[in-house]
């Protein structure tokens, strides 16, 4: 990262009444980066974005844009622009006037306004729509106009507050492709807020997973997915089996864990001996028929019974009960036909490199549930 971050958030704290919305958040965002703030509702991600935009003033901490402290600057004097969750096009203006709004307010010459609006509309593939009103546009088109209206001002950072959450799934997927392209073509810095982990992984250079007003983990999507630093991150980002195990041998690269009556290797540097959580992604769980394994070494696999099979389009998902652990695991794999039937006896296995270990305090047997959306925080903000 360069010495001077494009956006620097320094130990920001914020409260709504007695509800803590942000509990000490620090984050540096580099030039041209697309960073996603990902978390459940009420985790503080939107509050953080609004603090960067200038709609809220943090109780403590600082916000710097290209080295300049803007914590006390109101929204209209900051070089940030925002795409909102709901379409916020001005209904009394057409597409051209909407996109030109920021340039007009800034007193940009008319000829330059026209050129830059045309360029912005071309960027979002809406050239020719200048004279339309917002009610003549689809939801996806409205958000593309909102994107052009923000980018035309060449902001130091573009803020996106769940811009796709009000759209249909199909249009959402198309818009993801568009956003990636716009990000590539403009080279602008994006801060993107979402509660959709799939969207975050698809779009981001880096993801900041937030929970209860803090950043739980910051990293590139593959790292966050494969090497989560907490059970919360493991469960919130993607689907995960989180199983209680005991680390019996710990090495520099690899550990041996015991779960139920079986011992298994896991690639994970320097885990602590004793209780731990084993994180297994469903696609990493290998399932085979119990009798096909006859004669093979079953020491590293677990006996299980299929409880549910569901077709997923790209393959099949199963739920398998493991009597030795008293838990169920989710498994997923490609295939044209259902690999198993309900009540089949199976053996469950995984490769050492596809598991991951996290510390487990005391003797908890089940992973903590993902926190319910904090209704109080959401209300306090409204």
């Amino acid at each position: 990262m360069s010495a001077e971050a494009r956006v620097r958030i320094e130990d920001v704290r914020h409260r709504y009444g007695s509800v803590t919305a942000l509990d000490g958040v620090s984050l540096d965002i580099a030039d041209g980066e697309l960073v996603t703030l990902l978390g459940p509702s009420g985790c503080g991600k939107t509050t953080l974005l609004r603090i960067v935009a200038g709609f809220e003033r943090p109780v403590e901490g600082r916000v710097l844009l290209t080295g300049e402290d803007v914590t006390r600057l109101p929204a209209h004097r900051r070089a940030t622009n925002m795409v909102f969750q709901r379409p916020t096009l001005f209904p009394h203006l057409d597409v051209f006037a909407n996109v030109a709004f920021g340039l007009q307010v800034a007193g940009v010459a008319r000829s330059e306004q026209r050129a830059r609006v045309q360029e912005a509309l071309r960027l979002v593939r809406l050239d020719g729509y200048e004279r339309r009103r917002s009610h003549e546009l689809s939801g996806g088109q409205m958000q593309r106009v909102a994107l052009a209206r923000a980018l035309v001002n060449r902001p130091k950072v573009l803020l996106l507050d769940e811009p796709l959450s009000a759209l249909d799934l199909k249009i959402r997927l198309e818009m993801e492709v568009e956003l990636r392209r716009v990000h590539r073509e403009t080279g602008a810095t994006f801060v993107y807020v979402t509660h959709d982990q799939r969207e975050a992984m698809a779009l981001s250079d880096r993801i900041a997973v937030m929970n209860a007003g803090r950043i739980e983990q910051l990293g590139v999507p593959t790292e966050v997915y494969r090497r989560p630093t907490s059970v919360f991150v493991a469960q919130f980002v993607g689907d995960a089996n989180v199983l209680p195990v005991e680390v019996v041998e710990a090495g520099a690269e690899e550990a041996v864990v015991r779960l139920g009556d079986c011992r298994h290797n896991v690639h994970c540097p320097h885990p602590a001996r004793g209780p731990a959580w084993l994180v297994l992604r469903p696609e990493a769980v290998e399932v085979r028929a119990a009798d096909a394994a006859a004669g093979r070494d079953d020491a590293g696999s677990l006996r299980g019974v299929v409880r549910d099979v569901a077709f997923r389009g790209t393959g099949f998902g199963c739920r398998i009960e493991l009597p030795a652990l008293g838990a169920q695991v989710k498994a997923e794999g490609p295939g044209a036909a259902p690999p198993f039937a309900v009540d089949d006896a199976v053996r469950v296995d995984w490769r050492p490199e596809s598991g991951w270990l996290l510390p487990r305090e005391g003797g908890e047997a089940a992973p903590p549930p993902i926190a319910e959306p904090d209704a109080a925080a959401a209300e306090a903000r409204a």
Partner: protein
Amino acid sequence: MSGRHRSPIPGLVTLAGVLFLWLPLLVVVLFSLHETASLSFPFDGFSLRWYERVFESAEVRSAVQSSLVVATTTALTTLVLATLAAYGMSRARSRWRAPLALLFFLPITLPGLFIGVALLIAFTRTETSLSLVTVTIAHLVYVFPFFFVLARAALDRLDPALEEAAADLGANGRTVFRRVTLPQVWPVLVGAAALAFALSFDEFIITFYVVGPDPTLPLYIWSSLRKTIDPSINAISTLLLAFTVLLFVVTFALASWSERRRRGAVDPLALAGAEEAR
């Protein structure tokens, strides 16, 4: 449906109600066009002579002029003051917002008699001589809550996210109001100003207490009725009726046009999609 017996009574009651409301007005309109000075049937034919007499009368002209000056001043002053009050109220975050809004709105329930007497006492105590100025002040007190309620409703319906978006694009408070808020609510505000004008133009009770040497039109009509029953009163009343109805039509048309425009601004299909996505 055919052959089903329907009672004629609801229809007759409705007709009687409509006649009760409109017949007196129609009689006034009819006799304003009467050939003779008689105010009773039989009707002797049509003429515009009473209208001519009204337009020639210096007293009537002066009363109309007074009323126009008072109503215009009242409407314009209310437009500015009540719009600012309503905007402040709808955007304030203070917890005094609701009680203050109630204070602004509550005078709508006060009897005109009470307002009239109270203002007369106030003017006497402050040794303010009664004139069209005091009439205008009284009308402002009377009309303000009506305008405030309409403006507040229109402003509260606006999406605050639009103003936030404008601020985000670099607009300061004044620019946001001028370029985003006002363009969306002006039809309602103009309509409310027309209503304020109409309310002021034919106000009688409050005016009666605070009027000076120059009468407004309603007061002129009332005083001339006390002397003799002159058929030209019918002509004046008819003109007043036509003018007031016109103002209310303008108010209503602007309000409903603005409402349609506002609805059209939100794509119902996009909203339905948003609901499904959730």
